[in-house]
């Protein structure tokens, strides 16, 4: 088992070379885990580059995180590769931040069809909006759910 960070550094170098202004931050947080933070308006370009040039062909999930103290939502696309056996263990966390008062982001369904359900869940659980999402409906919650988006930090439990 190779413990060096060569592959991670190489990927980060390529990303920084191609998007010198758009990538705010790219670091290897530990072996085979890379965090890449981009500006929301540039995420489509970076995503296309990751898919077509670096063979990150599928999402393993999409997370939304509510940083209510910083008044922002972070949307994290977890990307992995199945076609390239050498980088199957590498996971890229492609991050973008949207402001809490107008949580609008661009949907990446056209790039990775697999993100559809994850983005739908973020819509109902956090009240995010994804432009260009084909089915922005409820996924898990009741159809007549009238409460606030339950995963937001200000929603507390009665026993809390």
């Amino acid at each position, binding site marked *: 088992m190779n413990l060096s960070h060569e592959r991670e550094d190489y990927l980060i170098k390529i990303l920084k070379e191609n998007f010198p202004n758009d990538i705010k931050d790219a670091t290897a947080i530990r072996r085979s885990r890379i965090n890449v933070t981009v500006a929301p308006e540039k995420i489509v370009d970076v995503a296309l580059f990751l898919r077509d040039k670096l063979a990150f062909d599928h999402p393993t999930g999409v997370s939304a995180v509510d940083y209510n103290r910083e008044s922002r939502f972070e949307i994290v696309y977890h990307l992995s590769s199945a076609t390239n056996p050498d980088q199957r263990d590498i996971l890229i966390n492609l991050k973008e931040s949207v402001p809490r008062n107008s949580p609008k982001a661009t949907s990446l369904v056209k790039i990775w069809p697999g993100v559809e359900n994850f983005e739908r869940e973020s819509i109902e659980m956090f009240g995010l909006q994804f432009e260009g999402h084909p089915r922005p409906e409820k996924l*898990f*919650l*009741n*159809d007549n759910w009238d409460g606030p988006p*339950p995963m937001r930090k200000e*929603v507390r439990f*009665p*026993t809390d």
Partner: protein
Amino acid sequence: MSAQKPVQSDDPIELLADSLNVWVGKLSDIVHKVIDTEPIRNVINWARMYSLWPVNITTACCSAEFGAASGARHDLERFGVLPYGSLRQSDLIVIEGTITKKMAKRLRMIYDQMAIPRYVIAMGDCAISGGLFHDSYSIVNGAHEFLPVDVYVPGCPPRPEALEHGIIMLQEKIRSSKVYPQS
């Protein structure tokens, strides 16, 4: 009866039907009483006890233990429990675990469509009181909030033996019950 009606019908057939209704009503009361006497009631209850067919509805993860209980080692069919697809021929709902708000609506709908007599077993802590998920935003804390429950089977999840015990308890309950529930 007919005299109290605001409009007295002159149609002889209707009059006949009205009086027949009264008679049929009285007759059925007598039949009910006769059937509820000890020997006939025992036969009917015996038949009900050993043909408890649960509906094919699974609410959450206790279904894994329900599956294990229906399977080879525990074999619920020896108690006459055979999961069945059609609501109208089923007599039992085994609520297998957590009831979400989305499922509760459907569960009540299913219960209402079933023919009387119908029984409910609440299986697992979640179906009794919410269990591990008692403080969640999307669940109903216990089946008793929208259904009359006959037997509670505690456990998270209950072992198949516990479910068997619950079914035997339900059978005992049916054995001592009346054929026609007081409504």
